[in-house]
Protein backbone atom coordinates (compact mmCIF):
# COMPACT_ATOMS: atom_id res chain seq x y z
CA UNK A 1 0.00 0.00 0.00
CA UNK A 2 2.19 2.75 -1.25
CA UNK A 3 0.93 6.31 -1.28
CA UNK A 4 4.16 7.75 -2.54
CA UNK A 5 2.80 8.74 -5.92
CA UNK A 6 0.07 10.88 -4.40
CA UNK A 7 2.25 12.76 -1.94
CA UNK A 8 2.80 16.44 -2.53
CA UNK A 9 6.36 17.71 -2.10
CA UNK A 10 5.40 19.46 1.11
CA UNK A 11 3.79 16.37 2.59
CA UNK A 12 6.83 14.34 1.68
CA UNK A 13 9.13 16.92 3.20
CA UNK A 14 7.18 16.98 6.46
CA UNK A 15 7.18 13.20 6.58
CA UNK A 16 10.91 13.02 6.08
CA UNK A 17 11.45 15.56 8.85
CA UNK A 18 9.12 13.65 11.13
CA UNK A 19 10.78 10.36 10.33
CA UNK A 20 14.18 11.80 11.20
CA UNK A 21 12.87 13.11 14.49
CA UNK A 22 11.16 9.83 15.32
CA UNK A 23 14.38 7.95 14.65
CA UNK A 24 16.36 10.41 16.74
CA UNK A 25 13.87 9.87 19.53
CA UNK A 26 14.22 6.09 19.29
CA UNK A 27 17.99 6.44 19.51
CA UNK A 28 17.74 8.74 22.50
CA UNK A 29 15.33 6.41 24.26
CA UNK A 30 17.80 3.57 23.81
CA UNK A 31 20.73 5.56 25.14
CA UNK A 32 18.76 6.93 28.06
CA UNK A 33 17.35 3.53 28.95
CA UNK A 34 20.92 2.25 29.16
CA UNK A 35 22.04 5.10 31.36
CA UNK A 36 19.14 5.58 33.71
CA UNK A 37 19.12 4.09 37.18
CA UNK A 38 15.38 3.85 37.59
CA UNK A 39 13.68 0.61 36.55
CA UNK A 40 10.28 2.25 36.13
CA UNK A 41 11.81 4.90 33.94
CA UNK A 42 13.53 2.25 31.89
CA UNK A 43 10.25 0.57 31.08
CA UNK A 44 8.70 3.96 30.34
CA UNK A 45 11.50 4.64 27.85
CA UNK A 46 10.99 1.25 26.25
CA UNK A 47 7.29 2.02 25.88
CA UNK A 48 8.08 5.35 24.26
CA UNK A 49 10.65 3.74 21.97
CA UNK A 50 8.17 1.08 20.89
CA UNK A 51 5.65 3.78 20.15
CA UNK A 52 8.23 5.70 18.15
CA UNK A 53 9.22 2.63 16.21
CA UNK A 54 5.60 2.22 15.26
CA UNK A 55 5.50 5.83 14.10
CA UNK A 56 8.66 5.47 12.07
CA UNK A 57 7.30 2.39 10.33
CA UNK A 58 4.07 4.15 9.57
CA UNK A 59 5.90 7.13 8.10
CA UNK A 60 8.14 4.91 6.03
CA UNK A 61 5.07 3.14 4.78
CA UNK A 62 3.50 6.43 3.77
CA UNK A 63 6.71 7.47 2.05
CA UNK A 64 6.57 4.31 0.03
CA UNK A 65 9.30 2.35 1.72
CA UNK A 66 8.67 -1.00 3.24
CA UNK A 67 9.57 -1.05 6.96
CA UNK A 68 12.19 -3.77 6.81
CA UNK A 69 13.68 -3.08 3.44
CA UNK A 70 16.90 -1.33 2.56
CA UNK A 71 15.15 1.41 0.62
CA UNK A 72 14.73 3.48 3.76
CA UNK A 73 18.46 4.00 4.02
CA UNK A 74 18.54 7.78 3.94
CA UNK A 75 16.14 8.03 6.87
CA UNK A 76 18.08 5.73 9.12
Amino acid at each position, binding site marked *: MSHSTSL*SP*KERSYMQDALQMENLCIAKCGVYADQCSNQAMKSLLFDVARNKRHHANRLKQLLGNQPGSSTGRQYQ
Partner: protein
Amino acid sequence: MATRSSYQPNRNRLSDRDMLMDLLATEKYMSHLYDHAIMEAASDTVRDAFAALQQDEHETAQMLFDFMQQHGWYTTGANRQKTGRRLQSSQPLSGGRLQRNTQGSIPMTQADSRYAVTSGSRRLGQSFGAGKNRSQGNAQPSWSRQSRQRSDETRPEWDY
Protein backbone atom coordinates in the same frame (compact mmCIF):
# COMPACT_ATOMS: atom_id res chain seq x y z
CA MET B 1 16.30 19.80 45.73
CA ALA B 2 14.72 16.53 44.82
CA THR B 3 15.42 16.96 41.14
CA ARG B 4 19.06 16.07 41.60
CA SER B 5 18.52 12.84 43.50
CA SER B 6 19.81 10.76 40.62
CA TYR B 7 22.46 13.17 39.44
CA GLN B 8 25.84 11.65 38.77
CA PRO B 9 28.37 14.46 38.93
CA ASN B 10 31.45 12.31 38.41
CA ARG B 11 30.45 11.00 35.06
CA ASN B 12 29.61 13.18 32.16
CA ARG B 13 26.01 12.07 31.96
CA LEU B 14 22.55 13.47 32.08
CA SER B 15 20.48 12.94 35.18
CA ASP B 16 17.28 10.91 34.88
CA ARG B 17 15.35 14.10 35.13
CA ASP B 18 17.31 15.79 32.37
CA MET B 19 16.83 12.82 30.09
CA LEU B 20 13.09 13.08 30.48
CA MET B 21 13.22 16.84 30.04
CA ASP B 22 15.03 16.30 26.79
CA LEU B 23 12.51 13.75 25.60
CA LEU B 24 9.66 16.00 26.59
CA ALA B 25 11.22 18.87 24.65
CA THR B 26 11.51 16.57 21.66
CA GLU B 27 7.86 15.65 22.02
CA LYS B 28 6.93 19.30 22.06
CA TYR B 29 8.91 19.93 18.93
CA MET B 30 7.35 16.96 17.18
CA SER B 31 3.88 18.01 18.22
CA HIS B 32 4.52 21.35 16.51
CA LEU B 33 5.92 19.55 13.51
CA TYR B 34 2.83 17.39 13.16
CA ASP B 35 0.59 20.35 13.74
CA HIS B 36 2.15 22.14 10.80
CA ALA B 37 2.07 18.95 8.78
CA ILE B 38 -1.67 18.58 9.38
CA MET B 39 -2.24 22.12 8.19
CA GLU B 40 -0.16 21.56 5.08
CA ALA B 41 -1.56 18.16 4.20
CA ALA B 42 -3.28 18.05 0.85
CA SER B 43 -5.00 14.69 1.03
CA ASP B 44 -7.27 13.20 3.64
CA THR B 45 -5.14 10.10 3.95
CA VAL B 46 -2.07 12.10 4.86
CA ARG B 47 -3.96 14.43 7.14
CA ASP B 48 -5.51 11.57 9.06
CA ALA B 49 -2.15 9.88 9.37
CA PHE B 50 -0.53 13.02 10.75
CA ALA B 51 -3.45 13.58 13.09
CA ALA B 52 -3.10 10.05 14.46
CA LEU B 53 0.62 10.56 14.97
CA GLN B 54 -0.06 13.91 16.60
CA GLN B 55 -2.49 12.25 19.00
CA ASP B 56 0.16 9.69 19.90
CA GLU B 57 2.66 12.47 20.58
CA HIS B 58 0.23 14.06 22.96
CA GLU B 59 -0.22 10.79 24.80
CA THR B 60 3.51 10.18 24.97
CA ALA B 61 4.09 13.68 26.28
CA GLN B 62 1.38 13.06 28.86
CA MET B 63 3.11 9.85 29.96
CA LEU B 64 6.43 11.62 30.32
CA PHE B 65 4.87 14.52 32.16
CA ASP B 66 2.98 12.26 34.57
CA PHE B 67 6.11 10.29 35.31
CA MET B 68 8.08 13.44 35.96
CA GLN B 69 5.39 14.81 38.20
CA GLN B 70 5.29 11.61 40.21
CA HIS B 71 8.97 12.04 40.91
CA GLY B 72 8.76 15.76 41.49
CA TRP B 73 10.95 16.47 38.51
CA TYR B 74 8.76 18.97 36.78
CA THR B 75 8.98 22.42 38.28
CA THR B 76 5.80 24.05 37.16
CA GLY B 77 5.48 26.47 40.04
CA ALA B 78 3.08 26.60 42.95
CA ASN B 79 -0.05 26.44 40.86
CA ARG B 80 0.61 23.01 39.44
CA GLN B 81 2.25 21.73 42.57
CA LYS B 82 -0.79 22.57 44.63
CA THR B 83 -3.32 20.97 42.35
CA GLY B 84 -1.38 17.89 41.31
CA ARG B 85 -3.16 15.01 42.98
CA ARG B 86 -0.17 12.75 43.15
CA LEU B 87 1.88 15.19 45.14
CA GLN B 88 1.41 15.09 48.86
CA SER B 89 -0.78 18.13 49.04
CA SER B 90 -3.88 18.51 51.15
CA GLN B 91 -5.26 21.25 48.96
CA PRO B 92 -8.31 20.16 47.01
CA LEU B 93 -8.74 20.90 43.37
CA SER B 94 -10.63 24.11 42.87
CA GLY B 95 -12.91 24.51 39.90
CA GLY B 96 -12.39 21.40 37.80
CA ARG B 97 -13.92 22.87 34.71
CA LEU B 98 -10.81 22.51 32.62
CA GLN B 99 -9.80 19.12 33.93
CA ARG B 100 -9.26 16.72 31.12
CA ASN B 101 -8.52 13.59 33.07
CA THR B 102 -8.22 12.23 36.56
CA GLN B 103 -4.48 12.77 36.72
CA GLY B 104 -5.07 16.41 37.54
CA SER B 105 -2.17 17.38 35.36
CA ILE B 106 -3.74 20.38 33.67
CA PRO B 107 -4.79 22.64 36.50
CA MET B 108 -4.79 26.09 35.00
CA THR B 109 -7.84 27.58 36.62
CA GLN B 110 -6.00 30.27 38.53
CA ALA B 111 -4.19 31.87 35.65
CA ASP B 112 -7.22 31.36 33.47
CA SER B 113 -9.55 33.37 35.65
CA ARG B 114 -6.98 36.09 36.06
CA TYR B 115 -6.65 36.48 32.33
CA ALA B 116 -10.37 36.36 31.85
CA VAL B 117 -10.86 39.32 34.18
CA THR B 118 -8.33 41.62 32.56
CA SER B 119 -9.20 40.88 28.99
CA GLY B 120 -12.91 40.50 29.60
CA SER B 121 -13.60 44.13 30.43
CA ARG B 122 -12.78 46.39 27.55
CA ARG B 123 -11.00 48.98 29.63
CA LEU B 124 -7.69 48.46 27.94
CA GLY B 125 -8.92 49.24 24.46
CA GLN B 126 -10.94 52.17 25.73
CA SER B 127 -8.14 53.96 27.50
CA PHE B 128 -5.73 53.18 24.72
CA GLY B 129 -8.06 54.59 22.11
CA ALA B 130 -8.98 57.64 24.19
CA GLY B 131 -5.43 58.55 25.06
CA LYS B 132 -4.13 58.18 21.58
CA ASN B 133 -6.87 59.33 19.29
CA ARG B 134 -9.58 61.22 21.16
CA SER B 135 -9.67 64.71 22.63
CA GLN B 136 -9.50 65.00 26.41
CA GLY B 137 -13.09 66.10 26.86
CA ASN B 138 -14.60 63.24 24.91
CA ALA B 139 -16.35 61.07 27.42
CA GLN B 140 -17.82 58.67 24.89
CA PRO B 141 -16.58 55.14 24.87
CA SER B 142 -14.46 54.41 21.85
CA TRP B 143 -16.96 51.91 20.50
CA SER B 144 -20.08 54.11 20.81
CA ARG B 145 -21.94 55.10 17.68
CA GLN B 146 -21.80 58.88 18.14
CA SER B 147 -18.13 58.82 18.82
CA ARG B 148 -17.49 56.93 15.64
CA GLN B 149 -19.51 59.33 13.53
CA ARG B 150 -17.93 62.43 14.97
CA SER B 151 -14.31 61.42 14.71
CA ASP B 152 -14.29 59.66 11.45
CA GLU B 153 -10.90 60.92 10.35
CA THR B 154 -9.15 60.01 13.57
CA ARG B 155 -10.69 56.61 13.84
CA PRO B 156 -7.94 54.09 14.33
CA GLU B 157 -7.73 51.00 12.23
CA TRP B 158 -8.50 48.57 15.00
CA ASP B 159 -11.88 50.20 15.55
CA TYR B 160 -13.46 48.52 12.56
